[in-house]
Each structure stands twice: as structure tokens, then as C-alpha cells.
């Protein structure tokens, strides 16, 4: 058992996977225990959780901006061709 707790405390890969899952789902009881025990000892994974939440917010901002400032733009040639196609089929 002591060995197992040590593994939980050390396993950042598992803890961050659980943290990502927790953003969407209720964790099972053993999962909750594993994550909370890990976080008592691991500042890096606490940072990960904050950063993951920031990424979620950033993605909302990114998605909102896609409209006004699309990161990619059609070339003029492509636009001309597309408009012709639309007008022909409309």
C-alpha cells in the first residue's frame, strides 16, 4: 500500500489525465482520491490545472475571433473562382 501511494504521488502523467477528464466528467471515487492525493504533493500539476483552464478560456476567445479576424484568408484568385462557381450554380 505504501508503495502504491508513492506511485500515485509520483505519477504526473496520470494526475494530469485525470485533471483533464475532470473538466468534463465526474471522476470515480478512486480517481478523485488519486488526483487529490497527488495534488497535495505536486505544485507542477497544480500549475497544469490552472493552465489547462486558461487554455479553455483562450480557445473560446480564439473561436470568437475566427469570425472577425480569420487567421487564413482566401487568395484573390481563389475568391474570384469561387464567386464564379457560386453564381453559375445559384
Amino acid at each position, binding site marked *: 500500500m505504501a508503495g502504491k501511494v508513492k506511485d500515485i504521488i509520483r505519477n*504526473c502523467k496520470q494526475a494530469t489525465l485525470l485533471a483533464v477528464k475532470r473538466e468534463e466528467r465526474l471522476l470515480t471515487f478512486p480517481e478523485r482520491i488519486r488526483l487529490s492525493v497527488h495534488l497535495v504533493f505536486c505544485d507542477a500539476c497544480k500549475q497544469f490545472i490552472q493552465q489547462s483552464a486558461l487554455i479553455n478560456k483562450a480557445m473560446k476567445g480564439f473561436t470568437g*475571433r475566427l469570425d472577425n479576424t*480569420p487567421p487564413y484568408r482566401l487568395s484573390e484568385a481563389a475568391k474570384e473562382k469561387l464567386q464564379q462557381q457560386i453564381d453559375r450554380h*445559384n
Partner: protein
Amino acid sequence: MNHQVNPSNWLRLYGDYLFSIAMMKLNDRQLAEDIVQDTFLSAIKAVDGFKGESSEKTWLVTILKNKITDHYRKRSSLKEAGNYLLETDHSFTASFFESGPGDIPHWLDNTAPADWGASADKALNREEFYAILQLCIKKMPEKLALVFIAKFVEETETSLICKDFEISSSNYWVIIHRAKVLMRSCLEKNWFLE
């Protein structure tokens, strides 16, 4: 013709928007242009079926998304996500975590998430930050990026993502986890601790 729909305006109103979604998922200008064209032409054909239950734009995005999913289905690059995850597990783990035999995967010294500072949120108001964010999406392996975009750009329901990509929910979590690990590392290097 349905009075709510006006195809002659589509290119001006939605062209670059649809093209950007296509580019993020396909990373290929010619292919993205073709798929946008295909989307407009299919939409013109289906215009009578458009009931105005969603906006014209949402409707076009749905058609575009289906075209892109079909494209990946044909190329079968969505298949065997499970195998892909297994095959690449070692290299992913080794890049971020200690992973010697018998090792428990713990952050490496140089990959442990650093403190981004109390004002990290301010980045969200900077246009340049979103360019970095987009670069970080572009750098993700295709299979991860497709699922990440479906979830966080298109805001598709998880159950629907699993169905579209034919992945189990546990593989979905593995993909989102990897994408987040890569994304936070990329943002840290290129923005927060730059």
C-alpha cells in the same frame, strides 16, 4: 428559394471564416479551397432543405465539417486511433515525463509546468497571443489536432466526437490530455516564458 438564404453573399460573409476552419484541419491551401467550394455548391443544391432552424452560417459550417470528416474517412486517417496512440505513447511519454523501465511518469525538470504569473490571463486580450495559439494548434500531430479543434473550436459534444472519429471515450481522454500537454508546453515556450 428560401428568403433567408442568399448564396451570392456567402463568399463575402463567410469565405475566409470557412477557409480558416478548413485550413486548421487540413493544413493544405488547395484542398481547403476545394472543400470550401464544395461546401458552397452542396449548400446551393440543398438550399430548399434549409429551414432556418440554425443561422445560415452554422448551417454552412455543419456542411463544411461533414465534408472534412468525409475526406478523412476516405483517407482512413481517422481509423486506428487506438493503434496510433499505443505506438506513439512511448515517445510522447519520454518527451515530457521520466519513463525509464519501472519509472513512474513524473514531469522532467525541463517540462514541469512553470508558473505563468498572476497576470497570465492578460494574454487573452492580446491579438498576438492568438497568433501563437494558432501556431501551437498547427504544430500538433494531425490526429490530436482534429479532435482538439472539434472540441475547442467547433465545440462539438464529446459523445459526437467519439462517434465521428470512431474512438472510444478513453482514447478521447488520452488525445485531449496529450493535446493539452503539447499546447501548454508550446504556449509556455513561445509566449509566457518567452
